[in-house]
């Protein structure tokens, strides 16, 4: 269970996040929606310890992890898949995965790697090639796989569908559902509200650093005016 409670983050004098709360239970996906600059990415980065938190709390299974160094938070069981499918381009696919398992034992990592390869056969096919030569969708899968390597209890995804071909978006988001179903708590930021709502269990809508809507995804799917009101027509496609 990942819980973010009343989080405040500022860049100098600018308050980027003003009291955001969001939570994700094991096996469930919480979708964070919001326009550009709403503070979504800032929230994830602060929860991960990559930005200083001004006030508020981040709890993992009830244990506060606020303000801990990032590399310790990973050991605590929370992992971030950052925006823009970042992989270590010159390293091979397998080396990227091995790095992802840095915090676990060798046996555990080998075991998880088998599972990752099962989940993404394409990664196994290209295990010895440089990660930089993978397609966009494949790099996103590698980023997922690498995050899974740390055997996390909770995962935060920052815009997994960004910059992918439409057909790829569907398969990537399908993968996100599979990951959640394996019992991991997922907190996902997405601009593609339409697709995101299809797989999400709960939704949090953020505008100018504040939560403006929070509830089950079903409700947002039925009553699209909620999403429409805060994100505009574009977010729900044509």
């Amino acid at each position: 269970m990942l819980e973010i409670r009343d989080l405040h983050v500022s860049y100098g004098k600018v308050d980027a996040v003003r009291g955001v709360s969001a939570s994700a239970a094991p096996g469930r996906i919480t979708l964070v929606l919001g326009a550009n600059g709403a503070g979504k990415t800032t929230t994830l980065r602060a929860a991960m310890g990559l930005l200083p938190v001004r006030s508020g709390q981040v709890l993992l299974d009830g244990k506060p992890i606020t303000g801990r160094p990032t590399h310790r938070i990973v050991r605590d069981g929370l992992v971030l898949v950052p925006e823009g499918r970042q992989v270590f381009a010159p390293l091979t696919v397998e080396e990227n995965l091995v790095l992802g398992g840095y915090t676990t034992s060798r046996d555990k990592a080998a075991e998880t790697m088998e599972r990752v390869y099962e989940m993404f056969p394409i990664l196994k096919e290209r295990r010895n090639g440089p990660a930089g030569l993978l397609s966009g969708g494949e790099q996103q899968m590698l980023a997922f796989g690498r995050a899974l390597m740390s055997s996390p209890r909770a995962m935060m995804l920052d815009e997994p569908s960004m910059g992918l071909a439409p057909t790829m978006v569907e398969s990537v988001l399908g993968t996100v559902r599979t990951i959640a179903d394996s019992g991991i708590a997922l907190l996902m930021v997405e601009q593609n509200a339409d697709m995101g709502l299809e797989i999400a269990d709960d939704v949090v809508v953020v505008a100018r650093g504040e939560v403006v809507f929070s509830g089950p995804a079903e409700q947002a799917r039925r009553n699209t005016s909620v999403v429409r009101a805060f994100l505009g027509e574009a977010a729900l496609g044509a």
Partner: protein
Amino acid sequence: MIGWYEANLVLIEATFLNFLLALSIQVPLRLGVFSFAGVGSYGLGAYTAAILTLRYDVPAFVAIGAAVLLAAVVGYLFSLLVARLNGLYLAMATIAFVLIIAVLATNGGELTGGANGLYGALSDLTTGGVVAVCVVVAVLLALTERGPLRRRIEAVREDPELSLSMGIGVVPMRQMAFAVSGALGACAGAMNALLRTTVSPEEINFHLIVLALTMVIIGGSRSWIGAFIGSVIFTWLPSVLASAGRWQDVVYGVIIILAAIFMPTGLLGLVQTLYQKLRGRRSAAVTAEAPADDTAEERALLQALGGESRGGVQ
């Protein structure tokens, strides 16, 4: 008639000392950290070894060992001080560190001999000892260029934040790099002071910073082999260029500019690329039926990609 070895002993020794100096810049650079603190440590090490030898007449290995240890600790403490700096700001702070060491040496009174420096630090250090130290250092560094440690180092250089997000302790690794850089720089400085029996504040100047950086960039910044190639070239080049007379500096400058333009991955990178190209062409000819995902074209792309991400200083 004296042999080539005796005639060039000073240059041979200087090659190995420059090798260590170059490594003191290269170690942090491999983690993506632009630090010249190793040059300051060179001065720190030189003075420490000279003072210990002059005042207490300790054996060479004790003087060098103490210098290395002191510089490693100072390097570590310095890394805490500049922990929040990055890129150019960090580079500037490390240059300031070098200049501070030089100022301390000039104004150290009786202890450092002031502007004249220290003379007569006679010790039992031999050329063989210098070479032995360099071999040990090269072996240890070669170990960091393979296996799990290489992956970690490359990950931290490519993307420190992503490395953090994977649980890699980026900050401790950087602190370690500063300590190792300090130790390497001090080792070079201490051995230089003991071999020459003198040390003066003029030695720790901007020229030494430029030399150290040039050796690493032109030789190759990713491997100890690159640092060695660089140290050989830039130790011997001035004496080779002596025949150019008063044009010596111009020729030196032109060579560096051309190298920077045409060898962005250093000499070592150039040799590796050529080798891979040769091998790639041969194996493509042998395996007429290459698997679909491993065509020569893709391999060329791979090389271009690898070359690009390895090129320059990030």
